[in-house]
């Protein structure tokens, strides 16, 4: 029997096949047992790896042209429109207004991230301990609000915060304030609306991390005499740091580029950088400045994304819930 001796090598392998596949085989075969050639005469020498590797080109080309392409185009344009050089960046740095908007964006993103963390942590903690139908209800509320249109939720906050809106009705009817308060446009409305929209992106990574924490460590702590608060502070909290940092990076990054909520609720005094870019491009037709601001935003986002990827590797994939 010629077939019996070595199961790893395909008996139907001809010299032609060897020359076609041989190079790759030799280079990659040793560590991976996956590389087995077909024993079938109808399809000589196909392997799973070789087959699926070909699938890479189409999506990569698509992402290359329509995702990497635009990014490069924006970056190049920021240096050449209207005149070649660093003119746009000089204006960003020295005219005052642009820098102020960037600072305002960073500040708002920081506040939103901090508030989200403060609110999301206890919620995730309760959800991590919940079971059965309670967990199902809690999870579905978080997921439904995650997937409800951002435009619609900002509209809802507009209705709540407007002069004759829900909140002002509540405040005046209970006698807390004398007259209606002008929340719109304002910083409070922007922060509340953004926290509301970003909260699920903080809850889900923290929750996924908390669920992976080994509870026997907490039992060990209590056996050794720690009271529940001490064992939370000394054991659980440090173990949940990967979730905290993954969620915070995600929320901060998404807040930086946020458009709808600040545009609707913020007004001209609370401009964020995405709103400014849209104004420069769509209304002022100042594409060079829009591109320069976008490049600055891109740079900050890329740095944060790399940081986030590093953190997620420890947290165990909080990104799987991201939008």
């Amino acid at each position, binding site marked *: 029997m010629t077939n019996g001796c070595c199961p790893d090598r395909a008996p139907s392998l001809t010299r032609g096949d060897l020359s076609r596949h041989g190079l790759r085989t030799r280079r990659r075969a040793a560590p991976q047992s996956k590389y087995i050639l077909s024993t*079938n005469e109808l399809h000589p020498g196909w392997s799973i790896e070789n087959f699926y590797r070909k699938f*890479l080109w189409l999506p990569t080309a698509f992402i290359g042209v329509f995702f990497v392409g635009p990014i490069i185009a924006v970056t190049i344009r920021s240096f050449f429109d209207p005149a070649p050089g660093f003119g746009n960046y000089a204006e960003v740095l020295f005219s005052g207004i642009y820098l102020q908007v960037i600072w305002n964006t960073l500040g708002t993103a920081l506040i939103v991230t901090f508030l989200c963390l403060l609110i999301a942590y206890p919620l995730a903690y309760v959800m991590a301990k919940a079971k059965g139908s309670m967990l199902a209800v809690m999870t579905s509320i978080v997921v439904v609000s995650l997937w409800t249109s951002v435009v619609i939720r900002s509209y809802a906050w507009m209705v709540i915060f407007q002069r004759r809106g829900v909140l002002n009705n509540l405040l005046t009817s209970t006698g807390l304030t004398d007259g209606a308060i002008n929340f719109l446009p304002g910083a409070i409305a922007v922060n509340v609306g953004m926290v509301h929209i970003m909260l699920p992106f903080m809850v889900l990574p923290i929750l996924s991390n908390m669920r992976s924490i080994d509870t026997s460590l907490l039992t060990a702590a209590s056996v050794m005499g720690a009271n529940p608060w001490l064992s939370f502070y000394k054991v659980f909290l440090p173990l949940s740091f990967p979730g905290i940092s993954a969620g915070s990076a995600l929320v901060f990054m998404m807040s930086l580029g946020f458009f709808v909520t600040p545009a609707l609720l913020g007004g001209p005094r609370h401009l964020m950088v995405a709103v400014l870019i849209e104004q420069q491009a769509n209304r002022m037709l100042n594409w060079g400045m829009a591109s320069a601001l976008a490049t600055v935003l891109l740079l900050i986002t890329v740095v944060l994304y790399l940081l986030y990827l590093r953190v997620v590797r420890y947290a165990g994939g909080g990104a799987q819930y991201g939008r």
Partner: protein
Amino acid sequence: MDADTATWLPIRYRASNKLLVLLAWLILLFLITPQFVIVPLSFSSEAYLSFPPAGWSTKWYGSFANSPDWGRAAINSLAIGLPTALLSMILGTMASLAVSRGGITRQSLVAALMVAPMMLPHIILAIGLYPIMLWFKLLTSYAGVIIAHTVVGIPLVFITVNSALSRHSGSLELAAMTLGAGPWQSFWKVTFPLIRPGILIGGILAFASSFDELMLALFLTGVGTQTLPRLIWLQMNDYLTPTIAAAASLIFLVTLGLLVAVSILQTRSGAEKANAHG
């Protein structure tokens, strides 16, 4: 002393636990309330937005249904969302198969590239795609915005298919291969049925994200191809009528329906898995 601590400590902790659960439900209430403020508003009998409404009527749904603008926008949203979902499913699945089964080098780099569109602020993509679509003569066409939404949709499919693939070791494909199946046969008969729920869930999410997307639609669609979010956006900047609330409630309903479909798919694929192992 010991007996003392044993009696008062647990009560204190139990009370704080109860408080924590109460706090969690309050946070969930905060999360869900705004969505449910719009629904009663859409049934208001008055033209201005007061809450709770003074009277009830369904006339805003009537004005939504009778307005050619809203009808056109709803059809546009579907005409853009469905091809987006299909394209995202094809390209995202291909990328996922290549990355997790193709044995490619720089695997994590390619994976990061495929997920990156999800993280990039849409405004950057929008002002970058505008001149490119202008150059391809696709500006204000359906194709232009479908391509843009697919860029954002691919990561969603890529992630869900990746997680479906990670549940299977690939030994079934190996078995099919050694039993004499060709590459396409083993894909359609073995791999595809295993990852079908993942592909579908990713497709639904891609549709939902296209259905909600504003920024790219704002730059890439025209008057004839504008989507529901864009029309809501334009109307919101001009006047706040309950017609917007009616449209928003309908969109919210569609989102809920899609999420129910996703959760049914998830439980079904989970049950199949349990059956296969049990």
